[in-house]
């Protein structure tokens, strides 16, 4: 039916500096997914042919479902991420782009602490998803 195993996600640059803040979990996941890619991550921006600039990364939590007695029953967790990609000559390869991911989670007061840990699980899932989307966008960068 025309499906083929995805080849190496060729990025239009050989070296990339990923400007995630130190210790960023998304940055760690990004580095992990870049293993086995032809493009190499470098530690210093001046050594890179392209630079991924993380403009912002934030989390939001909103109540999206109230019970009939006005109690929160469902939350939506959001991961908001903005980035841009520039080459060594400061030319913009990808203009500032915002990615928003969301996951819903049920909530009750009695499970207040348990839900905290489930939220962490959902944020990890979103980070993983975010990195996938980010890699796709980097691969499609203007050549």
């Amino acid at each position: 039916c025309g499906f083929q195993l995805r080849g190496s996600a060729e990025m239009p640059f050989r070296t990339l500096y990923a400007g995630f803040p130190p210790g960023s979990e998304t940055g760690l996941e990004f580095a992990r997914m870049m293993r086995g890619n032809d493009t190499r991550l470098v530690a210093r921006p001046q050594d890179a042919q392209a630079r991924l600039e993380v403009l912002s990364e934030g989390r939001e939590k909103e109540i999206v479902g109230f019970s009939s007695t006005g109690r929160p029953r469902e939350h939506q967790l959001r991961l908001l991420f903005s980035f841009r990609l520039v080459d060594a000559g400061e030319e913009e390869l990808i203009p500032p782009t915002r990615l928003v991911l969301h996951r819903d989670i049920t909530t009750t007061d009695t499970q207040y602490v348990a839900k905290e840990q489930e939220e962490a699980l959902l944020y990890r899932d979103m980070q993983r998803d975010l990195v996938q989307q980010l890699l796709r966008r980097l691969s499609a960068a203007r050549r």
Partner: protein
Amino acid sequence: QAAGEQGMALRLETQLNEAGAAQSEGRPVYGRADSLSGRPGRDFTLEGDAELRRAGTVVRGNRITWYPEDEEVLAVGAVRVVRQGSVITGPELRLKLDSTEGFFTSPSYELPLYNGRGQAERIDFLGPDRIGLRNATYTTCRPEDPDWVLSAEEMVIDTEEESGKGRWAGLSVGGRKVLSAPWFAFPLGDRRRSGFLTPGFAMTSRTGPEFVVPYYWNIAPNRDLTLHPRVMVRRGLQLGGQYRYLEHNYQGDLKVEYTPDDSLTGNSRYLYSYQHSFADLAGWGGWVDLRGVSDDNYFVDYSRSILSSSERVLPRDVVATRRMGDWTLLARATRYQSILDARRAPPYERVPQFNATWAKRDVAGFDVDAMFDATWFQRPLQGSPEGLRMVAFPQVSYPIVRPGWFVVPKLGLHMSSYRLDGGSPLTETSLHRSVPVFSLDAGLVFERPTSFFGRDLTQTLEPRVFYARAPYRDQSAFPVFDTGVADFGFPQLFSENSFVGHDRIADANQLTTAVVSRLIEPATGAESLRFAFGQRMYFSDQRVSIPGVAARNDKRSDLLFAATAGLGRGMSVDAGLQYSVRDSEVPRLNLLWRYLPGDGRILNAGVRYLRDELGQIDTSWRWPVAPRWTVMGRVNYSWLKQRVDPASGLLVDAKPGIIEGVLGFEYLVDCWTLRFVTQRFVTAEGRNTSAFFLQFELAGLARLGSDPFDILRRNIPGYRLPNDRPALPSRFFGYE
């Protein structure tokens, strides 16, 4: 071609650069006219359609005389001056170009940046950014027949400070004087400045009519204080305040509300909320979150939105963390104030908790994670087991990740030890448990080019399997401090443990299969559609359970579907569905359709269903219905007749009805807006609060009445302030 080889490229500036033009000192003066006469070095006269310009200033008129010695301009007849974003026209002008001082007689003026205009008897130029006006008017309406006019005997407009100030002023609306004041100030832009904010009036069914005069103190660029004394007809005086600060490695926000003598309950009532976060304090970062109220009914009585009225558990949380190489350390103490129904089943408090995680990536291809936790649990409920729990959970995985596939085997050993305090109902006071957990996660990524509605796209097909194995350990004697059943969703399908928390480690022998398919725009890599399907197969019945929740005994889980699609023309759909094959029913459903065609038009419609817990139709909109009228609102209707009581776990009766309803109208004329918003929400079992807001806004001048924007923004996703000013244009905007 040569330039290209050297790698030169023009860079696009989106705005003209201010730096060069603002400096007028020593810049040449250019003139143009039908005829030129004069004495060199003393004066020049330009006549007939004359124009004189120098960096930052343009003067036009029938006749312009220029005295180079004094750098002075005298212009007569249909004079027009453009400078610093203001346009002034009149019969006669005298202006010194070096100091930009001078005056204009009987002029009219315009501030295109702020959409403001008016007339005056005389305008004095008081330097580059300030003009003084005598017997002047100001409006943001169209000049022909302004609906409102501000007039003053003396007025100073400062484009640097972005403010207007005046003395002996009056406000006329529809030709009738409605307000007069010996002194007033109005903002031109949105810059923060100290002073009284516009008074607000609103009405809620629990506080009656209320009136608030906020005072804003801009202490420093990174610190401010807002005081809002509020008079509530049914409850008396309330003092409220908010103090915010922002430093490079810490920031905070303190809110207090205090009602010294509530006339209905006869006692003093208060709320406090303090959030502080810090980074790099001797290597530690963290936060403080303290919230509390005087009594259980505080939110029911005082809240203006369902967000605060729905709160039952208020945290008092202090957290400090630090990273040391591959280690992350955390120390935490958390207590809660549980109010109303949450008193029957309050959460466990962690007093204190110490946690350390160690994450080492790529040690000869292995990823190593280890978690160590020691927490003292307490609960303010009679008969609850309390005590110390220690957990160690090392895990090793070997991820093999390639662009087209991945395999991740993982092995972990969950070890825990409990020391329970005396008086607990459990007979054993010391408990130990260790559970090995194995999982194998593997997936493939296929791609093919396709076309969809005439667009060329890339379609992916991503099958994924996840196998988890953990042996059974009897855990019925273990207390449940912080553990619950995880939701049945896609992220949770790929978790080894069907519980969240460390008090229960599920016995598992199960395989999850899932398929995701996406449509991707090849030009940008953006995802325009996603479809996902997932199910879990169980090779053995689950024996570990949590009190109050029956253990699972089916061979196949419910089916999960999810779809997200941007349909173009501002339309998008987001759907999630759980289907039970055994019972032929849908335990969980989310469906949201959004339509944002632009021009401030918004339409959201959705359904949320969670068996016995949630069942609601949610729709919100903002739609212009007539040239000047916009209708906005939200209806969140619950149809459930029965629901599970979270504390007891039993089914109880529920009444169908509107959980939250908002209806608003906006009447918008070019320079003023009338806004009317009414809201009704459930505050507790069988209790409602209604609120009513009226706002009259003079564009670019003031908003009178209560601020309903928070309500609109929250209830109508996509709502923006109608007069949200885009980024100020360059000073060359309107350049002549």
